[in-house]
């Protein structure tokens, strides 16, 4: 069902947790549909220095959260914003069709976290 890469990120998720005093936090989904994802980022000089996630969801949800943090850690905000759900799925070697929406969530949570960061900057 899942690729080896998915199972690797599921079994050994990278960057699990929560950043205290994060620059931005994004949370998407709801428990009724079975996915909740929260991503917190620490930004310095427009670079994502640190990123952590917490996820309530299926194997694909956990794996996409994990790879998403790995893909953008150390990247600029603009590079992170360019990350699409397809890129997340591709980085995992693909997802089953029924599980594509899980990768949406990871990208969305990241974008939310960046929006939160920007809002704080402006505010």
């Amino acid at each position, binding site marked *: 069902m899942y690729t080896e890469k998915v199972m690797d990120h599921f079994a050994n998720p990278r960057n699990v947790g929560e950043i205290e005093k994060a620059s931005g936090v994004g949370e998407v989904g709801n428990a009724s549909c079975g996915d*909740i994802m929260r991503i917190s980022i620490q930004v310095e000089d427009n670079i994502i220095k640190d990123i952590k996630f917490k996820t309530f969801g299926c194997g694909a949800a956990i794996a996409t959260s994990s790879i998403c943090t790995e893909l953008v850690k150390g990247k600029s905000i603009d590079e992170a914003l360019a990350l699409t759900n397809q890129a997340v799925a591709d980085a995992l070697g693909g997802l089953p069709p029924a*599980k594509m929406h899980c990768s949406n969530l990871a990208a969305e949570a990241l974008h939310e976290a960046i929006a939160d960061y920007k809002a704080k900057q402006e505010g």
Partner: protein
Amino acid sequence: MQPVYMDHGATTPVHPEVVEAMVKAMQANFGNPSSVHAFGRAAKALLEEARVSVAALMGASPEQIIFTSGGTEADNIAIFGAARGMRQKGKGNHIITSAVEHHAVLDACKALEKEGFEVTVLPVDEHGQVHVEELEKALRDDTILVTIMHANNEVGTIQPIKELARLTKARGAVFHTDAVQSFGKIPVDVNDLGVDLLSASAHKIYGPKGVGCLYVARGVKLTPIGYGGSQEKRRRPGTENLPGIVGFGKAAAIAAVEIEEEGTRLRRYRDRLIEGLTALPHVKLNGHPTNRLPQNVNVSFQFIEGESLLLMLDMKRIAASSGSACTSGSLDPSHVLLAMGLSHEIAHGSLRLTLGRGNTEEEIDYILNTLPEIVERLRAMSPLYEGKEVVMSCTQRR
């Protein structure tokens, strides 16, 4: 350690003696039971022998058993057959079922709604039980069919079939029960239960997949749903699945001998699991505390989701199942858990362990030792869970 199979509610390993009987039926007795020659007669004899053995395990007469291609088809033949048959006789138009039925029953009833039948779906209580008073309220003069399962496949709750059937028959309607999960596991006697129609399936009792049966009491009219040859009194046409049926017969014969002892053994394992798992924080037993199948354990772990739990268990070589929608790719979690009043979130965190012949005391220990760690690990990743149990990261714990 061998992989631990605790998903007997989904399907069971095939008993070695069943395999043996099936191989013999394919090698030495491959004839078509409808043929008049020696090959045909030998096949026919095997077919009828299996019918005797399956009938015996439910206290029926052999001629009351129709072999089908599984539990789903048995349910469909019973429900479409009885509903259309009764309507043709002008008896009415109203069907009653429950909210926790298998999809083979629920979706058949939904399809009948499109044909103009009216369907009442009875609610269940927090343990998944149908109350007799609910049926009493729902029964009408034009009720023609009541279909309520004997034991639930997800939470193991056993329904008061005897009372439900008596009430139904007093009103002149037909009573069907889906006994796919109870047949061969707890005593099932069609006369004692007082049902008109009863479905069972071989692959839940160490028989092969693709075979089931329907008990049909004398005098019950069924409009066929399939057309073809005159096999099984025209109620289920098509060349009989002889090796499968022979396997079902053998499985029923073995179950008849083992049912009591196995029931006692599995009940003990079940209770150990329930006790051990519900002792963990934020865990809830699903289903009836006592009136449940000996082989069924169903618990919800708050803050975590079922598929991830199954995958982690799988990595520890434990096979189980869940009522989370994420395992099925659909949106809503198990309709059974929702009907019992569980929130979506709690339903998503459900785990079903269904025990069987091969399970051992050591396996119960293994589960009880392995699960807490996995649950804690997943909770540590969960944004819903902020308890202090997560002070140590799970990787350190390993």
